[in-house]
């Protein structure tokens, strides 16, 4: 992990007698995509609002790029782009006018405003709809407009609350691509979602929330190993001699299963495709196919909360 740009320590939040966050803590490194994952009502949005200084933590400390969002909210808000869950815009205004309003709030120079807005709209493929009223936009277009706002802001940190919620598979795919582009630009991204498998591919690390607590945090493969054991299943087909023994010597492989001659299924602690391929070739087999089943966050989450395991 690079130097942390978001740090939360012992963060707690109570509404009256109801505790919604129980002393959670995590760090997000620069340029990382970090996922706050868990079911609705687990405390993800409350955590995000505390990070933005939009609600006060009952206990604990937060630092965003070294600043306390409660003490220096304007400095934090200037450097953090936020797309809320079910992002709203002024329906009677065009996409351009909505972003012009945000640009004025941000204090972007008038001469620079429209160029930055059009560049951002171009990035999210909304440039041709710039003068269209947002009231006529689909759910997916509104989400992209939300992302355009963050791009226009040129914020080093983007916080996306449930970015793919309510999107069809195609829109989800293109939205995740946009998130990856944002990461490629060097932005640090913190996203929350209850759709674990959808966001798994873009997250470098995740924190799994349940009932206001972080039950697990880390890289997906680490969590899989910790929770599910030898969770990766590498499938290999090879012509030639039986290579069962050669494959069994690959580091990390715990079991080799041969359902039929020439087909091998390896249980491993991680993704060992490269090592398995090398072992197969060195053993004189002709490699025909190679695939891996990465453990899903959904499986990790289900297993964690079924067995009650926690860190």
């Amino acid at each position, binding site marked *: 992990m690079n130097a942390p740009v978001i740090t939360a320590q012992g963060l707690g939040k109570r509404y009256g007698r109801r505790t919604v966050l129980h002393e959670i803590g995590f760090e997000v490194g620069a340029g990382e995509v970090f996922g706050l994952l868990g079911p609705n009502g687990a405390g993800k949005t409350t955590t995000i609002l505390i990070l933005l200084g*939009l609600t006060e933590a009952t206990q604990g400390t937060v630092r965003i790029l070294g600043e306390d969002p409660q003490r220096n909210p*304007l400095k934090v808000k200037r450097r953090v782009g*936020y797309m809320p869950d079910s*992002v*709203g815009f002024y329906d009677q205004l065009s996409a351009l006018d909505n972003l012009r309003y945000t640009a*004025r709030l941000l204090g972007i120079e008038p001469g620079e405003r429209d160029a930055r807005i059009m560049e951002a709209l171009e990035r999210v493929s909304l440039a041709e709809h710039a003068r269209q009223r947002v009231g006529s936009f689909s759910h997916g277009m509104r989400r992209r407009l939300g992302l355009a*706002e963050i791009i226009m802001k040129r914020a080093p940190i983007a916080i996306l609350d449930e970015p793919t919620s309510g999107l069809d598979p195609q829109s989800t795919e293109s939205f995740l691509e946009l998130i990856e582009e944002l990461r490629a630009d060097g932005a640090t991204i913190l996203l929350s979602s209850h759709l674990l498998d959808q966001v798994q591919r873009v997250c470098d690390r995740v924190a799994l929330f349940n009932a206001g607590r972080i039950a697990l945090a880390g890289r997906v493969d680490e969590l899989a190993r910790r929770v599910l054991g030898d969770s990766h299943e590498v499938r290999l087909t090879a012509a030639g001699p039986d290579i069962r023994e050669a494959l069994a010597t690959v580091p990390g492989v715990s079991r080799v299963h041969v359902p039929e001659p020439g087909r091998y299924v390896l249980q491993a602690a991680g993704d060992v495709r490269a090592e398995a391929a090398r072992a197969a070739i060195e053993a004189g087999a002709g490699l025909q196919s190679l695939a891996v089943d990465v453990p899903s966050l959904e499986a990790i989450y289900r297993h964690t909360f079924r067995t009650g395991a926690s860190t």
Partner: protein
Amino acid sequence: MSTRREGSPWQGLGAVTAKELADHMGSARMRILEWLVVLTAAAALYGAIEGIRQTTSSDPFVFLRLFTDAQAPLPSFAALLGFLIPLVAIGLGFDAINGEYSHRTMSRILSQPIYRDALLLGKFLAGLAALAICLVCLWLLVMGAGLILLGVPPSGEEVLRSLAFLCAALAYAGVWLALALLCSVVFRSASTSALVALGLWLFTALLWPMLAPAIAQAIAPPDLATLLSGGMDMDTVAWQQGLMRVSPAALFSDTAITLLSPATRSLGPVFLSQIQGALLGAPLPLSESLAIVWPQFTGLIAAVLVLFTAGYVCFQRQEVRT
């Protein structure tokens, strides 16, 4: 550690005000309200002009009579404004804050580098600016119609008095706008907010003038001797006036009468000792009229401040999350 917030609480105020004002001026709601005001005001004005034309005696303040003369069944222009201003102000403010929640724009806007102070004050200032534009246009229409139809220009004092009335009308509008804004903070449903604000307006404008005398008599009942002589008990009258002035409508009405009818010498009971040596019906200078209505005017301003502060405190304590 210092608890002082960084930066100015008014950062972004200009952007919020400009956007909200543009929204108001372009909204269908505002256009309908404007037409309602203009048409009813034109009818009242027509009635006043007809009345003035039938008067043969000379009047040094004939222009001001455009505001105060009524011809049944239409009320005077000033009375009509007293009725319509709250309607327009409530129309502009009842969904100012809860509308941001229902359109799900609140958290997105507050995640920009502004404080809530700027959002609330920006919305209030935009509403007040829209009302000011409306009132100034009406004032210009009245003055223009007066010039054309009466054929005489207004005197300097008439212009000043009508401008002072315009300021009082704006303060009165501010009261109802601040109340509507408070309702929009307290109630998450726009319809509930509108209903409560309209209910309070109807209560203070229609029911309170009926209730205040009854309450005053219950608090300070007149003595039997006063009742038998058909006179007024000063205690009862004082209570009645005090209670009546709880209503912004009464404060505005007092201000309008004093500013637009220069002969008005007092807004309470007048004793013979007070008018010794005075020429009955003689107009007061503007400065003295202003001195008479100063408590009413400051009362309106105080009401604006109290209601806005209540809205501000409620809004600051509110969770952004819907």
